[in-house]
């Protein structure tokens, strides 16, 4: 039986880690959950790195992120707080899931939920 690990990773930790370390985890049958929406540039960088790592054994990843929009927030105060936090920390509210394509068949966006098919 194949062991699958699901790892929660705070965005701050993700940013500090080298992508090679992230890919070592992904190759090791780990699904990563990050507590933020990655930026488009970060996503593009991950795709580039994935392509460099593709081999006979590793076919790539499934990746999906969900962004919390201003409209989803309850009050104007929440919206302002979010804008300030995003500006200061660079962290977008939402979540990101990525996992090795051999394990994660598909990730569907609902668009308010992420559905993981394994």
């Amino acid at each position: 039986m194949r062991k699958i690990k699901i790892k929660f990773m705070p965005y701050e930790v993700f940013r500090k880690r080298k992508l090679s370390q992230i890919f070592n985890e992904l190759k090791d049958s780990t699904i990563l959950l990050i507590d933020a929406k990655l930026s488009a540039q970060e996503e593009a960088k991950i795709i580039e790195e994935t392509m460099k790592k593709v081999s006979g054994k590793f076919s790539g990843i499934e990746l999906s992120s969900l962004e919390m929009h201003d409209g989803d927030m309850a009050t104007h105060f929440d919206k302002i707080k979010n804008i300030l936090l995003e500006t200061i920390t660079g962290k977008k509210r939402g979540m990101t899931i990525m996992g090795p394509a051999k394990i994660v068949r598909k990730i569907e966006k609902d668009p308010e939920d992420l559905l993981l098919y394994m």
Partner: protein
Amino acid sequence: MVIKRLRDGIALRINSLFGSIFRKKKVVSIGIYGPVNAGKTTLANRICIDWLGEELGKVSNIPHETREIQMKENVTIKNNGKSLTFKLIDTPGIATKIDFEDFVKHGMKKKAAKERAKEATKGVIESIKWLEKMDLVMVVLDSTKDPLDQVNITILGNLDARDTPFVIVANKCDVKRSKASRVRDAFPKYKIVGVSAKTGFNIEELYHSLLEAL
């Protein structure tokens, strides 16, 4: 003092005159981006046949047929009295996974499939690198598929972040299960044109949108 000012003035005039004669006009680059098998090369071929009378690249049902950047210089499109000359750049499809076994399922030999996968990975990297060179992008999506695919979102997000103008092309409108409205619902704030690159359906609207976008 007066002589110096006169000399500088004449030098400036000469520079400006020769500058305007010899300054090379920047060539506009229009890129075709999108996920694998969305019909990017079919669209590039449609544009090239319409305005140059020749195709740009080979089309296939096997994914990753285009594995290198392909381009045509001096494509001039005309619509409603306006015209635009540009370099058309067709890019390999962007993907997050490439499994050589998928090519084997299409009847390729294992060795050839592995080679194709290797070339395809390089193609994806090239496509991403070329994003910064584009003045305008046509993001080609397969309108029979889920538009909220992460690859689509990443491409659009990167264009947005770079302030590169783009038009979303909801392709394959000739296919019965096509739903261009699903693409519109997914990306309501962007310009979307539903076309069939294969049959030429609504292609004039796309030319109009390109001329408007720049």
